[in-house]
């Protein structure tokens, strides 16, 4: 009698926002040979496999209920680092934190980073992340010089933008559905200081918000906006913009010091007193419309135009500033809805969406805007325009209404020629994906999937939702 199913491996995984969980048989390989064995085992057992890094997707991208989760966080070695050329080769489980801490003291910085440094590079490539410099640097995929990957069929391949170019442009942003990155070679960006020159100012409404981003972006390395989504009327879409620029050689007299990791490290205490690890408990009571509206109004009102210097880590990794901030959203967790709109249609569409959410009593508690440009990856989310990321608190009472709101949002965004990002939205339906990606891109992706993964071993709950439904 074979009773040898590895039940002790059946672990519960969550999304970043703690609003969704799924249990799976978890394997944590340390080398390529182990992944190869796991693929054979999965095929024999009739189970599907999902790749998982740090689990920082807001949705079901790294969840595979009842199947296998291949957690790649143990494959976390930096294989090669050349401080001369800025080329780094690493395993997929290496985090952005490991990476910048390795390269910054030598005067380099990752060309594209997410809002948290806890993400793994495998995950970053799988989602083809963008940063606050997307309009200039493109997504992280544009800085990949080469990667090697193990396909579920057993083949190991190397891809560069030229060699196996179709796979290169499909596996990056391919949600881990074609194969496993086994090594990634990235080009870092030269830095002459550990500081950025930051400029901040308030914008009184949506039109000014988008107009200022559009005007500021060509002049700066980074542009990001915070939006007060609770404000209505003339203040609809008001917020605060930040731009940041690299310092040129010689501009920072203390460059040697500011490039050190210790200089960049985020403070562990708030006002030097309150440990930040417990801050989320104090934030939780603010998780309602009234309190959040007050917080946003205060934040907006005290916002003044200012120029200052800030460390790279402090500017980029806002999501790490308050540890476990996502727990402040309570038992139901949070979801994020991010839409990408062409610059011509964004003003009207987002104006409509913000008004709609306020009318239904479901304002977002945090809105973040960025400037984008298109790229040539197969499942790209980019447009020549902007993105708006909206955080929503999930509660049992508001679940259905929020679902309806986001569905209505989808239709507005689609009509405005917009796109969506698979690391964020949790409710995107298959027909929505077909509309914004186009039948042709999906057919091409599926053909590649058939080639790389003939037994359809790689499947996540996201894949089932968007491509199989």
């Amino acid at each position, binding site marked *: *009698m*074979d*009773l*040898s*199913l590895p*039940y*002790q*491996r*059946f*672990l*519960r995984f969550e*999304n970043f*926002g703690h*609003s*969704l969980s*799924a*249990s799976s048989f978890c394997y944590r390989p340390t080398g390529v040979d182990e992944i190869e064995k796991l693929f054979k085992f999965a095929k024999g*057992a*009739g*189970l*599907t496999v999902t790749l998982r890094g740090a689990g920082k997707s807001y*949705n*079901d991208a790294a*969840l595979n*209920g*009842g*199947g296998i989760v291949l957690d790649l966080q143990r494959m976390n070695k930096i294989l090669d680092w050349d401080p001369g050329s800025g080329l780094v080769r690493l395993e997929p489980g290496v985090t952005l934190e490991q990476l910048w801490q390795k390269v910054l003291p030598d005067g380099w910085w990752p060309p594209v980073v997410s809002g948290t440094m806890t993400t793994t590079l495998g995950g970053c490539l799988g989602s083809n992340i963008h940063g606050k410099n997307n309009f200039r640097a493109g997504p992280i995929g544009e800085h990949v010089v080469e990667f090697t990957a193990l396909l579920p069929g057993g083949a190991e391949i190397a891809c560069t933008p030229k060699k196996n170019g179709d796979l290169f442009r499909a596996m990056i942003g391919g949600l881990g559905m074609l194969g496993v990155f086994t090594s990634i070679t990235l080009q870092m960006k030269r830095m002459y200081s550990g500081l950025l020159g930051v400029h901040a100012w308030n914008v009184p409404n949506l039109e000014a918000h988008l107009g200022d981003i559009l005007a500021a972006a060509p002049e700066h390395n980074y542009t990001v906006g915070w939006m007060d989504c609770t404000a209505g009327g003339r203040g609809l879409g008001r917020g605060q913009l930040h731009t940041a620029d690299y310092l040129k050689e010689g501009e920072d007299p203390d460059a040697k010091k500011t490039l050190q990791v210790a200089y960049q490290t985020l403070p562990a205490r708030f006002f030097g007193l309150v440990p930040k690890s417990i801050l989320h408990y104090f934030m939780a009571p603010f998780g309602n419309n009234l309190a959040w509206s007050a917080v946003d109004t205060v934040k907006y009102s005290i916002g003044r135009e200012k120029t200052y210097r800030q460390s790279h880590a402090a500017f980029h990794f806002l999501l790490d500033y308050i540890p476990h901030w996502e727990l402040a959203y309570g038992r*139901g*967790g949070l*979801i994020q809805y991010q839409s990408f709109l062409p610059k011509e249609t964004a003003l009207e569409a987002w104006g409509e969406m913000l008004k709609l959410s306020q009318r239904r009593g479901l304002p977002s508690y945090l809105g973040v805007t960025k400037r984008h440009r298109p790229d040539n990856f197969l499942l790209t989310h980019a447009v020549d325009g902007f993105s708006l990321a909206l955080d929503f608190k*999930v509660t049992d009472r508001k*679940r*259905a209404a*929020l*679902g309806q709101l*986001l569905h209505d949002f989808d239709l507005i965004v689609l009509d405005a020629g917009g796109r969506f990002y698979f690391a964020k939205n*949790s*409710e995107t339906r298959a027909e929505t994906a077909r509309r914004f990606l186009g039948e042709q891109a999906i057919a091409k992706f599926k053909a590649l999937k058939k080639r790389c993964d003939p037994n359809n071993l790689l499947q996540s*709950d996201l894949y*089932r*939702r968007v491509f199989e*439904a």
Partner: protein
Amino acid sequence: MPKSRTLLPARPTPLRPHKRAIVVGASSGIGAALARRLAREGYLVAALSRRTDRLEALCDEINQAAGETRAVAYTHDVTEYAAVPGLLQKILADLGGLDLFVYNAGAALPTGFKHYNFAKDLQTTEVNYLGALAWLNPVAALFQSQGAGTIVGTSSVAGERGRIGNPSYNASKAALSSYLESLRNRLTRRGIHVLTVKPGYVATELTQGQKGLFWVVSADQAAADIWKAVRRRKQDLYVPGRWRLVMFIVRNIPSFIFRRLSF
């Protein structure tokens, strides 16, 4: 087995969540009523039983009422112990996980007051107890590992004393109750809820034709009581509730009296 994977409903999302349940012994009686109830409460239910046709009819009825797939039929004989791990793995993959497990398979094969029949006793023990062990072992291990889950076992008030009428039925239900209590003591500290259901007389096929029944409740009522106990995380449930007092008295009748009784 489900006819096709495409019949399976979508996986949950933060705004369209659902839970998943396995009901072993779902083709009639309390099991069928509970499968219907769970589906109405939004669960996705794997319904297991030997009788494929009745099972499929039940699932069709549930799915039609819901307007979407909420129940999937799996033909299974609980005495096929070796089939359990493979079937459990398949159900996990089909449903996308497991939140609630119900062992409701049961057999009562009375031997009569003066007769002895090992074949009947074996079958009773296999269905009521050994089949439960075959399922509860892997399910408990899974729940322990994922740190969440609810286990419901349908035992019986008959498991509280050994009576003259049906020794192996009493013994198998006593064993099941005791096993569930052990699981509860093991697993509560790991966040898992174990409910022992002790019905009196429920109007099901098991009790059909039996004489001298009293306080008979419908299977639907039993399912409603069980659902309430699951939500309230009760440890044990008598159906109907007045059996709790009765069984307290019965448990405490001294043996010198009890062995002279003939019920």
